[in-house]
């Protein structure tokens, strides 16, 4: 145990193998749940729950969150989201990759990186409500079903990402 702790993090898994495991997980989700993987729904429902803790009547009467009822957390994708966190934790621990840090390029300030992370989060959170899914629910799960709209979403995600990449490159400068 002591010896292990002195060792550095384990190398990442072969990406194709990780992809096969992820693909089989998605397949299992389809064959057992009947629906694919999802992550942004969980976040949005947690947000609705937190907001209703502050202004309950407002959330209850709002058209979008209101439709989720009084217990927005009572939804399978919320449980899946907690599962993702748990699975990530187990894997990071076993691979000795658990490390508190703000990931950024050496020349970038922490503040700069966190401002971009926050702004990126706001855009991604908003966009995934608009498109009814994120990289998990639409790009991954929907594309595996060969759904037209999901494939279009997947292409647009990369188009948007590559278009904006140059402007935010400094956060990774070493």
């Amino acid at each position, binding site marked *: 145990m002591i010896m292990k702790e002195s060792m550095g993090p384990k190398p990442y898994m072969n990406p194709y193998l990780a992809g096969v495991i992820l693909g089989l997980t998605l397949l299992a989700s389809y064959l057992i749940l009947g629906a694919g993987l999802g992550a942004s729904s969980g976040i949005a429902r*947690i947000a609705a729950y937190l907001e209703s803790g502050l202004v309950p009547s407002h959330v209850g009467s709002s058209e979008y969150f209101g439709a989720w009822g009084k217990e927005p957390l009572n939804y399978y994708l919320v449980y899946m989201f907690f599962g993702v966190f748990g699975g990530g934790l187990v894997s990071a621990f076993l691979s000795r990759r658990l490390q508190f840090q703000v990931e950024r390029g050496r020349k970038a300030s922490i503040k700069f990186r966190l401002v971009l992370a926050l702004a990126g989060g706001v855009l991604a959170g908003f966009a995934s409500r608009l498109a009814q899914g994120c990289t998990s629910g639409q790009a991954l799960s929907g594309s595996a079903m060969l759904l037209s709209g999901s494939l279009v979403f997947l292409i647009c995600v990369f188009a948007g990402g590559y278009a904006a990449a140059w402007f935010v490159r400094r956060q990774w400068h070493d």
Partner: protein
Amino acid sequence: MISTFFGLDALSSSAAMLTAFVIGLAFGFSLEQAGFGSSRRLAGIFYFRDMTVLKVMFTAVIVAMLGLQYASELGLIKEEHLFFMPSIYGAQIVGGLIFGVGFVMGAWCPGTAAVGLASGRLDALVFLAGAGIGSIFFNEFFGLLKGLYAWGDRGVRFAWQDLGLSASGFGFLMVAVALLMFWGSEYLEKRRAAGGTYWRSPFLRSFSVVMILLALGLMAMDGRVAGERPAGGAASTSAMLAEIESAKDHMEPEELADRLMRREPGLMVIDIRSAEEYAGFHIRGAVPMSMADLPELLAGRENQGIIVLYSNGMTHPAQARDALFRMGFTNVYILTDGLVGFLDRILKPASLRTDLLSEEQTARINSWRSYFLGADKTPAAPAEPEKPLAVSQPVPPAWPGLVEPAWLAENLGSADIRVIEVRAQAQYNGGHIPGSVCVSHDNFRGVVAGISSMLQPSELLAGHMSLMGIKPADQVVLVYDDKPHDATLVAMAFARLGHGRFGILNGGFPRWAQEKRPVTTELPQAQKSQYPVPAPDTFTVTYKQIMENLKAPNHVILDVRPTEYYTGEKVDEARGGHIPGAKNRPYTDDLVKYGKVTMLKPTEELAKAYASLVPSKQTTVVIHCRTGHQASQTFFVMRYLLGYERVLWYDAGWTEWAARSELPVEK
């Protein structure tokens, strides 16, 4: 065959929650193993530095895709057990572009950020907080975003279908594109000296070969099967739709009757109603089978002889027929107009028919009757509904819309649920839903600008709501006795006030009572509120507006009065007839009775009926009756249950139109 939680409608069960959690564990584990607990690595793809995201993601997509196609090809899973997301192109294009920008800025996406947080990355925590804020932002501005949210909604669409390919053919293309991208990425990484570990490696070679073989295997299976069964490909779906469109999948009652009387070999007539109904009456020669047993009992009869399905109506047989078609049956027909049609067109005595009959026709009817009825007796005809009324389920309502009694019963105690009984005072006094108040729909009407029975202006309506202690955010449930249009008229008052959440109790008070839900004689306590007065509504139209648009394209006037008033046979006003060009759809056609319970017909049935009257959901529809009362029910159906976007209400109705002699009338 696999039954999924979705297929069993059990996605909200605790077993499904637990399963979702376990699947989430595997999901998070594989993401972390791939290295997605690191934002730097995720961002790498956008700078062509580290293509892991592409490799993992596309490997997962093709593996799951092949797995799904094999599962359905081998009959492990059926389409109805899977949830397919609709394609809403506008929302998905705009959402995808914004998401991409957010992805490269934050260097996380929602799922990987959860894994990043689990790995201790503080930037992941900040990203997640941002995503929560973004979701709240969406909710707050949903009113403005609704149009965009539904922009370009094309329903469930498959890419292979849009491109005119077979699913397996398109799947092969996907695999090929993914493999090309993998090899390209490895080459790129190698050139940049950042990785490219797998360039020309035995591993990537064998991985590529396996994926291609799997995709080819699927195409071969599809090809082999294509000769035997038409299911699967795009061609077969369009073939089915073409047959449905041309009604080739229907058999007319007369044809069925003649074929049965000839005792045609190979003809199988199946009654898919309940055993009790079958025992009560069935077409002579028909065999009973429940819908669920059809695939098993009919195995081996694909394309042998003729199979005719019937029920009271046509909805269930049509569904069963489509399901069988997908399984490869091309010899299944449904009886036009169902048993109801058969009773009317075959078994109704010649003496009761309205058409003039030739002697031959009379003889034919008599021979049918003697064959199918044995003696000259009328069958114990099941009057209308296909099935006895089912007990309601606690499904949350989609406001404004129908409210299920079971849901109301579960939520009755909540402070923001307000029940208004639009029933007679005496009936209410005898027993009502706990906490409910009683009003007459006439309380909300009065003389406006010389016309009687008009819905009151919003300041008066707001006054009524304030007295009842109703607040704009309340969930209001309107309860009728036997006339749904009493409740829908009050619903018009809420619509005029711009109230968000109101609905009518599905089945009204009689269904509530029949399901033995709580009833009391106690009076409720209500505190006065201050209901705000909104701007005038935009759905009420005047005769002037109707006159201006009388010949406008994409404009339909629906007269919902009983047909004899529409035709002018009966007249209770200054003049008889209807507004030129108006179509007639009596409001009673939307109702169905189960004993004492009066309900609106099932939404699918209503959707079909209105689709044949109104070209599209964007067509402007003006609804009127005599005083606006009956029209309120059709308004509710079209606007809230069927989602027609431009539904207008001519409240003054025929009372005004007939009285203004300058207005044109058609008979």
